[in-house]
């Protein structure tokens, strides 16, 4: 262990509430000790969930791990807490550029430059993105948000998807099992007017499980167990079916919310059994 890491670790041990976790996490990240850096960052985030720099640090670690989607969420959170956070703007600029969305990248880099006009790395990055924008003729169509593409639907799949929830009300419409990438694993869902919305909703749910887990943890609510939703056109419940899968149950408003939650728990048990059968 290098001297600076030793020193910072000792300082953090002596005062766990101090902000020394920030330089310690960053030093570990720069040394490539990503597991240790992440542990330090998460401990700091647990203590200071409202600190933009803590989200910025965690986002940089996630970027080094090539977990760009979660990094995006962390920088997005940093900007919600501090709309002028240069590090978060810089990070989002990097991610947008990487996704081929140069215009958005430049907007974030310029916002970062307003806060840190003398940062040579920002100046260089902004110049590079401006060059890229200048080279684009015609400009590319905006890339879609980093939501995964819907899974291809085949006739045989429809029966298999419903089979997960065989015997349960709504096996083909109203029960939906999705993975963390926003792909449908089973079940089905239709809008009130009849259109198939399963894949669209699955894509929207891609980040919800992680967001619910993060919210519950950072607010001291413990492990997330369920989300209940009331809307004009229906009642819904979301449950984690596993660490990798999320269950959505939707019923119309004539079904009381309590019954929707009971149905969700029953369907979650079926989903867990099905997931275990795959392993």
């Amino acid at each position, binding site marked *: 262990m290098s001297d600076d890491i030793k020193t910072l670790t000792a300082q953090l041990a002596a005062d766990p509430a101090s902000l020394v976790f920030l330089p310690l996490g960053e030093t570990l990240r720069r040394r490539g000790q990503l597991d240790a850096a992440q542990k330090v960052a998460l401990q700091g985030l647990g203590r200071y969930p409202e600190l933009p720099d803590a989200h910025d640090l965690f986002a940089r670690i996630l970027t080094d791990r090539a977990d760009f989607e979660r990094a995006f969420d962390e920088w997005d959170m940093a900007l919600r807490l501090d709309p002028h956070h240069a590090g978060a703007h810089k990070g989002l600029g990097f991610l947008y550029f990487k996704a081929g969305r140069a215009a958005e990248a430049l907007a974030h880099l310029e916002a970062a430059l307003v806060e840190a006009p003398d940062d040579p790395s920002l100046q260089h990055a902004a110049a590079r993105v401006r060059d890229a924008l200048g080279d684009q003729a015609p400009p590319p169509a905006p890339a879609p948000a980093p939501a995964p593409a819907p899974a291809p639907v085949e006739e045989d799949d429809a029966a298999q998807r419903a089979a997960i929830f065989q015997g349960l009300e709504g096996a083909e419409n109203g029960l939906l099992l999705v993975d963390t990438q926003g792909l449908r694993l089973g079940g089905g869902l239709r809008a009130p007017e009849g259109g198939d919305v399963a894949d669209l909703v699955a894509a929207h749910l891609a980040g919800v499980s992680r967001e619910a887990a993060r919210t519950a943890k950072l607010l001291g609510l413990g492990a997330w167990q369920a989300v209940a939703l009331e*809307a004009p056109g229906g009642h819904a419940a979301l449950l984690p079916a596993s660490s990798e899968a999320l269950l959505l149950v*939707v019923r119309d408003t004539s079904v009381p919310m309590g019954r929707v939650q009971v149905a969700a728990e029953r369907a979650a048990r079926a989903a867990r059994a099905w997931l275990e059968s795959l392993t």
Partner: protein
Amino acid sequence: MSESKFETALDLVTRVPGVRGAMLVSAADGVVVAEALMDEMKGNAVAALAASLAGRLRRAVEGAGRGAPRFVQLTGSEGTLLAAPWGEEVLLVAVADRSVNAGLARLEMFRALEILA
């Protein structure tokens, strides 16, 4: 909107046993509009996290053709987060212990929204 109206609305919610705090939050950016929280609660974090989660859930439920949620409850093993929109731009948010009567809290949140309307 007078300060006293905010206070009256938030007070309705925080009087429910088990509710640790309530606040009005900008739905778009998670900024605190008004708050009534216990001392140890971190208002900025509650606001930002609640607004972010509510935004994601809203997109999913609207994608299902069910309209925008009028009430959301996140249940954790040690507590619960409740949220209800006040118009398009503001969320009424409450954080409560696991022991809270969520049904009562929900009703008081709707009453609070009526006061604000």
